[in-house]
């Protein structure tokens, strides 16, 4: 290991409290810290101010407080090509994409990593809540100490090569400690609200945003038996297991989205949170990535998350041919959604993840989930 003062760490700074504190901690440890702001999306708020400009102003304020150099880099084109295009394509297919996973894979830990390395950096650091350790010569990604903030779900596609060059200075901290550190040091972003939702949509109405890019095709809402219950605004606006916004009244249990038929533009609905159609016992996934580098060749047991901030569930993973993976659940799971990531864990270690393509029930593909 080089001396920290000879070790250049590029910190990806968003203008938020987390990356600000990440930079602060590295600076305190004596690293040669360089703050870099990424501009991925061109957006202007209702007052004509570019939201990225506001965030970059915060980056400048914090970097000046820490006395570290700051720069910006523009990845709008790469983001559009690699993340946003994928995002729209997935919706067109009736799936529910995860742009954060894709952004980490293609932008933050690829294009941005390359940029950091071109600046002579030894490491790239971010304000993500996750941990990296070396175990018997292998880099391992661990859940953050603050399980509630753990972001390994979104980082599941990171490779050995990437993990060997990243630092997550917040991984061992609780979110409230991070805030406290920011306040204690009077950082300009100490009281800044956490960003919510998908970065390019921000606080805006999701439906409105999507309709700017994809034509909405209204169609029927039907039960799986073909009974018409109403009209939907466009399949892309709904996700499996959703209750809100269906507008079906009447007696009995509330109504939920239980499936989609993209070919015929039908939204399937059913009554009750625990509607049988929402439950499955396995899935097929592709685009797998394994954080420890080694690709499993035999079936194995582990735990899995099928969406962010969900409790882990016990599963058995079977390698299939053509880079596909079958994941069988110990207990039936509700609302497994094609397009989302299935992320695997061995205790605290995140093993990697894949994209859910097909949902299984009794070893058969469920054909009504898109």
């Amino acid at each position, binding site marked *: 290991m080089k001396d920290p003062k000879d070790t250049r760490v590029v910190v990806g700074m968003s203008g938020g409290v987390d990356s600000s504190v990440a930079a602060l901690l590295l600076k305190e440890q004596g690293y040669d810290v360089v703050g870099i*702001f990424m*501009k991925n999306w061109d957006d202007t708020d209702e007052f004509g101010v*570019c939201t990225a*400009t506001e*965030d970059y102003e915060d980056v400048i304020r914090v970097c000046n407080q820490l006395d570290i150099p700051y720069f*910006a880099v523009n990845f709008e084109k790469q983001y559009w090509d690699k993340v946003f295009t994928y995002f729209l394509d997935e919706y067109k297919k009736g799936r529910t994409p995860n742009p954060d996973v894709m952004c980490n894979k293609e932008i933050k830990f690829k294009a941005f990593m390359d940029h950091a390395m071109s600046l002579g950096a030894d490491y790239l650091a971010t304000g993500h809540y996750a941990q990296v350790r070396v175990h018997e010569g292998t880099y391992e990604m661990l859940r953050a100490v603050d399980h509630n903030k753990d972001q390994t779900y979104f980082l599941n596609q990171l490779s050995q090569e990437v993990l060997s060059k990243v630092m997550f200075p917040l991984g061992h901290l609780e979110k409230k400690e991070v805030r406290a550190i920011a306040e204690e040091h009077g950082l300009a972003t100490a009281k800044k609200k956490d960003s919510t939702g998908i970065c390019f949509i921000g606080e805006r109405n999701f439906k409105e945003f999507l309709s700017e890019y994809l034509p909405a095709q209204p169609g029927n809402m039907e039960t799986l038996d073909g009974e018409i219950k109403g009209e939907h605004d466009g399949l892309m606006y709904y996700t499996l297991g959703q209750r809100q916004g269906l507008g079906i009244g009447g007696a009995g249990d509330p109504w939920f989205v239980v499936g989609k038929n993209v070919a015929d533009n039908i939204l399937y609905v059913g009554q009750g949170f625990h509607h049988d159609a929402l439950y499955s016992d396995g899935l097929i996934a592709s685009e797998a990535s394994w954080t420890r580098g080694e690709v499993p060749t035999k079936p194995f047991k582990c735990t899995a998350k099928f969406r962010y901030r969900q409790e882990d569930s016990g599963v058995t993973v079977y390698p299939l041919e053509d880079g596909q993976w079958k994941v069988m659940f110990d207990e039936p799971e509700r609302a497994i959604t094609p397009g989302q990531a299935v992320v695997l864990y061995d205790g605290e270690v995140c093993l990697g993840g894949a994209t859910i393509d097909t949902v299984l029930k009794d070893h058969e593909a469920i054909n009504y989930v898109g």
Partner: protein
Amino acid sequence: MKSIYLDHAATSPVHPNVIAEMMPVYKEVFGNPSSVHQFGRKARRILDEGRRRIAYGIGANEKEIVFTSGGTEADNLAIIGTARANISKGKHIITTTIEHHATLHAVEYLESQGFEVTYLPVNENGRIHVTDVKDALREDTILVSIMMVNNETGVMQPINEVAELLQGHQAYFHSDIVQAYGLMDINVTSLGVDLMAVSSHKINGPKGIGFLYIREGTILESLQYGGEQERKRRAGTENIPAVKGLQTAVEIIEAERSTYKEKYLHYKELFLQKLKEEEVPFEVNGSEESTIESIVNISFPGMNVETLLTNFDLSGIAASSGSACTAGSVEPSHVLSAMFGSEHPKTTNSVRFSFGFANNEEDIVEAATRVSQVIKRLT
């Protein structure tokens, strides 16, 4: 590691003599030049003397100089001020695609107010064609605004020829001479312009001051409302220490121009020579023979300007893309886009180096060495 400043076209260090002349004014002359007492008169004397001295240097009379907060305000006042005051004569304005944003955004504003603007193109060398001005000129043209030296490429524009062409036409001729004034001998009579914008901080003067030359008889509306300062053309209490500083900076460049020209040309040649020796692939943007001595805009094939500038800075070299930034990230240069087309790689792989007062020969060689190291590492 020594930091080397090669961004004099962005701003320049203040000359020590300028500071020396300003200090006593800050300390002793605090009066308001409009006041009817001795404190005011003392300040007014410095204001008048500065104005007279600056006017003298460009062959103007002192009534033709209006102090502003800088180059941007001077450009705005020239363009918007004359457009508003001469609307009865027409609503057509001619400018170029390579102007500074102080001009471009001012004419864009006028477009939104119903004026018509013709933007003249430039060739690959970064120069406009005088015949294009001739073709664009209409009976109702009220203003032609063309910069003398482009801030990104350093390419000089044919101001004399345009002025000649405009002889006898009603249109006023404004030139942003911010980048030219430090090295070019300017005389308003031989130049034939009606308005000229100058900034102090580009010529080793203090920030926050500049001036607009307004040929006598030019009709222009003030953009600020308030007191009757600057003969009602620029309301607001005058910045007396800065006037003194600007005056001193002007005196220095008038005495040193020819020395500076020679020196900066030498720096430029030395810098390019060193890059060649290091076998760094590069191309100079803009015609070299019509480029001002202090600026060189270099394209590094296969590179990315953001990566270059960040790397240069981390190696202690301050340079610039010369273009505007949004959220800190470098947008493709509008000047290079005008020269080569908006998709041309040169718009995103070019860096402006500008030499000046802060440099010496040793620094130039050292800077070229470090630049070469970065390019080689990234290749």
